[in-house]
């Protein structure tokens, strides 16, 4: 049988997962990776840690230097895929060459969303915060005196703020929303995290937005004016779906994939931040732009592309994030009946719906959160466990002796 | 009581240099001796509750603990000793009988230690068990007086009464379920099976889970008749009628209601939580002829398929009693000496009633031989068999096999703290508290029992080989293999042995 040609557009977590997925089944078929970035695969979530010196560019590499070679991968780095021709089964690059494929993975990730803001063009030192290059550029622009303005109090904006805290003078964060991290925290949780971040001298201007930029100052709708030397725009991201759409793949918020990471077009798969999939906690189709999902979707795609059988059916939104030593672990969705426990420095919220745990927020006290996450993922009926125990802390004691015996007696 | 008269027997020495306050001692002490003081972050202890079971000492990961006798002394008095005075204080306080458990701890003579074993030199060779077969198999049961022949002249093998076959002349003695735990019973049962010997239910019945070990179990019928029913009798390899127990001759048993848990009550066939009282005598045995009737009714009930053992305590005229039993239809006589253990006995009885098993055995064996009925019965001796040398000496004196119980419990972890009666055994043996019972894992327990008996078996073989004897049958009653040291003429006469040097 003829060897299959694999092509992967994108070179981040999903791509790496895909390569390993393919090789777990097919040791021979040639794999070509096309990436706009010039770097071997690195871990994007680490860029903020790079800025604060927790890691190095070297350590950010997801795999050893010989990864591509060892896996028989032809990595075309710094090249851009402009179009996919489903008929001829080829990917066209900006250089004009065309790469044929039998199986294609689209792992194009996402791009920063920059809303129209008047006067933005006048700002010289403005940055996004998504890629290694973004981080390097931002790092280069910073001085100990820098006054930094970050637009956007989401995960990216705040990780950026943490990352540069000790390398800048002042940091101000502006967001239209009236609270930080609105996508993963409820008002109470976000207030708590906000207080903690503020205690490290970061200033928030919430429920406000930039009306007009000048070269080194921003006039806000509220009438306030914020001076700055460096601007970071971290309002949000948009999935890169054009390539898929052009190939005729069904696209909703993101590229629509099934449990096998297959798109609507045979032979074409997609994985990672550019996709939307089903969130088991809410049952809705969502973009779950988080590293573990990208990894698992990529690997799933790889196995299926190579003719194996793999399904990844229990994706949930989840985030492990910390700011200045305060850890925040969340998962699932928050629409349901809530159980809340608080203590100084601690916030615990469990959300229950239809006899299932559907979501949680843990701040400060996060030990063993994975037990909760697995309850969500496995959609464990709460009447089959001792939820009273679970409310206070995640513990295997809450499971039946028999379940425990399975879990601890014969682990898989 | 406002004044606490009695002095704590023990003192807990905790080495602050070593203690890491892991609180294992606290968690493992059912007597609640140890506690953690969060203010100082250190451990404290309440001596008054300590029974010296050494559970904490054994589990302390840094060996920070020592239990020592409390050096606090009353004015020295060779007659009114501290113990004596302490007992009086306790009785003055409680108005009750003193209770204790396990065997007689008093310094009465230990005849085992006054007998020495022979070995071959020159005139006949000793035998090396590593090179030659060395046989410890033995059969218990009545032997026929005469050989009978079939019409074809071959020997008629059918005139042999039921026998117990032992691969090693050591059996586990009676300990009831209730007095000891489920896991202790399981350990004994599994070990007996692996060793090719027998364990004994005691008078508490046989737990339904353990019927699978029936081929290796001796079922006991005692004065309380607890747990006795047809299926139970039929299950056993042999049936033992318990008349008396070395630790408390002449009195019955008393298992406090606290130990009668669901399982125990089901097994004993008595209501949960009620005290289990075994009468002092069997109320259907007031004479030797009554015994004969019980022996035969049990044989009838089991179609003469099972040997019947009669167990008595070693008392003053044990020889005459044994002779009576040997003529009662019993197949095996078990004699329990005054060192025998118990789950609970009145201290005065334990310490003052009965006689040493060595003398009882010698007297009984000799008496049965004089009356030419030694072959009517096999003899099992019990009551403080401590090691393989005791076993060899017992067999040389005339025993067919020995029962061990205390030694078995010690193998299971018992530290002889002698407070079984409290039901708070920290080693999971003499207790029914689930959290304590689970401390004895039968996988470990049975292995340790098998190890112990195998070790003894090897030692027995070595000693036999040294004597030039390669089968335990040839050791039985072979009193020339023993010599006495420091014994009076009378003692030598009773033991039927010569003095060393003769």
């Amino acid at each position, binding site marked *: 049988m003829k060897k299959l040609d694999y092509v992967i557009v994108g070179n981040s977590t999903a791509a790496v997962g895909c390569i390993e997925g393919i090789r777990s089944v097919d040791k021979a078929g040639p794999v070509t990776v096309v990436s706009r970035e010039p770097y071997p695969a690195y871990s994007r979530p680490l860029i903020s840690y790079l800025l604060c010196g927790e890691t190095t560019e070297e350590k950010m590499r997801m795999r050893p230097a010989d990864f591509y070679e060892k896996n028989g991968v032809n990595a075309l780095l710094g090249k851009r895929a402009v179009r996919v021709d489903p008929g001829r089964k080829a990917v066209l690059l900006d250089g004009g060459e065309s790469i044929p494929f039998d199986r294609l993975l689209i792992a194009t990730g996402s791009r920063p969303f920059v809303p129209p803001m008047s006067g933005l063009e006048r700002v010289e030192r403005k940055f996004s915060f998504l890629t290694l290059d973004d981080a390097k550029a931002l790092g280069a622009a910073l001085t100990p005196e820098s006054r930094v303005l970050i637009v956007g109090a989401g995960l990216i904006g705040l990780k950026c703020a943490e990352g540069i805290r000790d390398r800048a003078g002042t940091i101000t964060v502006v967001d239209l929303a009236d609270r930080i991290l609105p996508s993963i925290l409820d008002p109470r949780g976000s207030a708590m995290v906000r207080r903690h971040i503020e205690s490290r001298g970061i200033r928030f201007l919430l429920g406000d937005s930039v009306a007009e930029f000048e070269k080194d100052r921003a006039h806000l709708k509220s009438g306030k004016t914020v001076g700055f030397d460096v601007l970071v725009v971290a309002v949000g991201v948009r999935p890169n779906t054009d390539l898929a759409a052009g190939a005729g793949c069904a696209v909703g918020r993101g590229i629509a994939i099934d449990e096998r990471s297959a798109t609507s077009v045979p032979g074409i798969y997609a994985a990672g931040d550019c996709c939307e999939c089903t969130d088991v906690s809410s049952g809705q189709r969502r973009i779950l732009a988080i590293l573990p999902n990208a990894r698992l979707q990529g690997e799933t795609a790889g196995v299926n592309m190579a003719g194996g059988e793999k399904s990844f059916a229990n994706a949930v939104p989840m985030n492990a994030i910390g700011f200045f030593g305060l850890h925040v672990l969340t998962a699932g969705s928050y629409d349901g009946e809530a159980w809340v426990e608080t203590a100084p420095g601690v916030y615990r919220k469990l959300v229950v719906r239809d006899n299932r745990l559907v979501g949680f927020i843990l701040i400060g006290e996060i030990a063993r959160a994975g037990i909760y996450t697995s309850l969500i993922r496995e959609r464990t009926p709460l009447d089959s466990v001792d939820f009273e125990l679970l409310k206070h802390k995640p513990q295997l004691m809450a499971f039946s002796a028999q379940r425990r015996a399975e879990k601890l007696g014969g682990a898989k | 009581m406002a004044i606490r008269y009695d002095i704590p027997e023990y003192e807990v020495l905790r080495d602050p240099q070593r203690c890491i306050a892991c609180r294992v001692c606290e968690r493992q002490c059912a007597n609640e001796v140890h506690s953690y003081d969060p203010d100082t972050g250190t451990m404290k202890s309440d001596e008054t509750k300590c029974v010296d079971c050494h559970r904490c000492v054994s589990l302390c990961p840094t060996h920070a603990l020592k239990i020592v006798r409390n050096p606090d002394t009353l004015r020295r008095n060779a007659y009114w000793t501290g113990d004596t005075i302490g007992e009086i204080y306790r009785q003055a306080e409680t108005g009750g009988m003193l209770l204790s458990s396990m065997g007689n701890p008093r310094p009465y003579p230990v005849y085992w230690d006054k007998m020495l074993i022979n070995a*071959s030199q020159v*005139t*006949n*060779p000793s*035998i090396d068990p590593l090179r*030659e*077969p060395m*046989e410890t*198999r*033995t*059969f218990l049961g009545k*032997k*026929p007086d*005469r*050989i009978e*022949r079939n019409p074809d002249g*071959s*020997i008629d*093998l059918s005139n*042999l009464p039921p*026998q117990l076959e032992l691969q090693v002349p050591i059996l586990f003695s009676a300990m009831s379920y209730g007095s000891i735990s489920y896991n202790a019973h399981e350990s004994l049962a599994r070990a007996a099976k692996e060793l090719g010997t027998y364990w004994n239910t005691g008078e508490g019945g046989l737990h339904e889970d353990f019927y699978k070990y029936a081929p290796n179990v001796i079922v006991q019928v005692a004065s309380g008749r607890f747990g006795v029913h047809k299926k139970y009798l039929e299950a056993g390899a042999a049936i033992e009628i318990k008349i008396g127990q070395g630790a408390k001759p002449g009195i019955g048993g008393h298992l406090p209601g606290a130990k009668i848990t669901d399982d125990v009550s089901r097994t004993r066939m008595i209501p949960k939580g009620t005290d289990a009282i075994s009468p002092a005598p069997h109320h259907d045995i007031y004479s030797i002829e009554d015994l004969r009737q019980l022996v035969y009714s049990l044989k009838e009930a089991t179609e003469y398929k099972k040997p019947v053992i009669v167990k008595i305590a070693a008392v003053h005229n044990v020889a005459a009693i044994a002779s009576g039993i040997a003529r009662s239809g019993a197949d095996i006589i078990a004699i329990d000496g005054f060192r025998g253990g118990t789950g609970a006995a009145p201290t005065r009885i334990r310490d003052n009633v009965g006689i040493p098993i060595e003398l009882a055995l010698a007297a009984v064996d000799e008496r049965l*031989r004089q009356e*030419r009925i*030694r*072959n009517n019965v096999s003899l099992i001796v019990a009551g403080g068999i401590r090691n393989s040398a005791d076993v060899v000496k017992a067999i040389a004196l*005339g025993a067919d096999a020995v029962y061990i119980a205390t030694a078995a419990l010690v193998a299971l972890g018992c530290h002889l703290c002698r407070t079984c009666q409290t039901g708070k055994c920290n080693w999971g043996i003499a207790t029914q508290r689930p959290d304590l019972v689970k401390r004895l894992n039968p996988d470990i327990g049975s292995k340790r029992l098998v190890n112990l008996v195998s070790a003894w078996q090897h030692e027995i073989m070595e000693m036999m080989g040294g*004597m*030039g*004897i*390669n*089968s335990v*049958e*040839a*050791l*039985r*009653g*072979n*009193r*020339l*293999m023993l010599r006495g040291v420091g014994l009076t003429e009378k003692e030598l006469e009773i033991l039927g042995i010569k003095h060393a040097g003769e």
Partner: protein
Amino acid sequence: MQNEGKIRIPSGCAISGVFSKSGERFDGETVIRSIVPMHDRSNGLGGGFAAYGIYPQHRDLYAFHVFYDSVRAKDECEEILRSGFDIEAAEKIPTRKMPQITDEPAIWRYFGLPFDKQLQSTGFDEREFVARFVVKINSSIPGAYVFSSGKNMGVFKAVGFPEDVGRYYRLEDYAGYCWTAHGRYPTNTPGWWGGAHPFSLLDYSVVHNGEISSYDANRRFIEMFGYRCTLLTDTEAIAYIVDYLNRRQGLSLRETADVIAAPFWSEIDRMDGEERRRRTYLRNVFSSLLITGPFSILLGFTGGMMALNDRLKLRSMVVGEKGDRVYVASEECAIRTVEPSLDRLWSPRGGQPVIVTLNKGVRV
């Protein structure tokens, strides 16, 4: 110094036996010559012989050989003897004066049968009656010792080297179809003739080389059945055991061997059903008669001879055959001396009895 009976004396030994299957009677010279080369296996402290078929003229009478230490003992013994037996002949056993043999007691022999009345009153059969009678004399009359009590056979023993003892008793004047001999090497120096071997009861005679470790277990068991092991010697105990199993329990000699030199359990367990059950039964029922420790036994009895080694064969014993003669001895040299050219010579395995009997129809 304590004699046999006061103390148990282990001893090494030499044994030899010659048997004629055709019943041809030959004098004691052969067996005496055969024991000479094994001189060093004994130390001059005991020698003896058993001979079968030597009293044809008194074939049907019990022949009692008795040692007397004193006239008083003789009177007492003869009184009891005559009270229980119809004595046809009583005489001194002829001996030859020799410097090597000293301290001789008075040695008498009597031929007779128990009085019927006596027999009936006890209810025992004749042999049982005689056996008990012998035990009684030996255990109750100090200074009198019956050392031979079978029909048409006799034991001759003394303190000394066996060859000297043979000459002393003038064995060249006797003719028998079976002779066994014993040279003794006791580990102390008892002066008593009764302690020499063979040991005999009724027509069973035992010569034995070895020291059995099961002695007291065997003794205390066998004494339950009316025997009294007055000498505390292995030979005595073995003789009683054979008497008990063969005569009283009616076991065949082979079955008797299966008891006293039983196969190991490991062997028995490998045997097939019926045989395994039979062996197990015998070992179980007569477990106290298992003999352990080293021994080689020559058992003489009317019409036959059995040679048996302990089950580990801890003592040497060889068997030779020439024509109708069977030779058994501790050492091959003993046999070669009297029969250089043998048809067959072998060393029996431990526990495997060699039983020879007179050919069919031979009467002696």
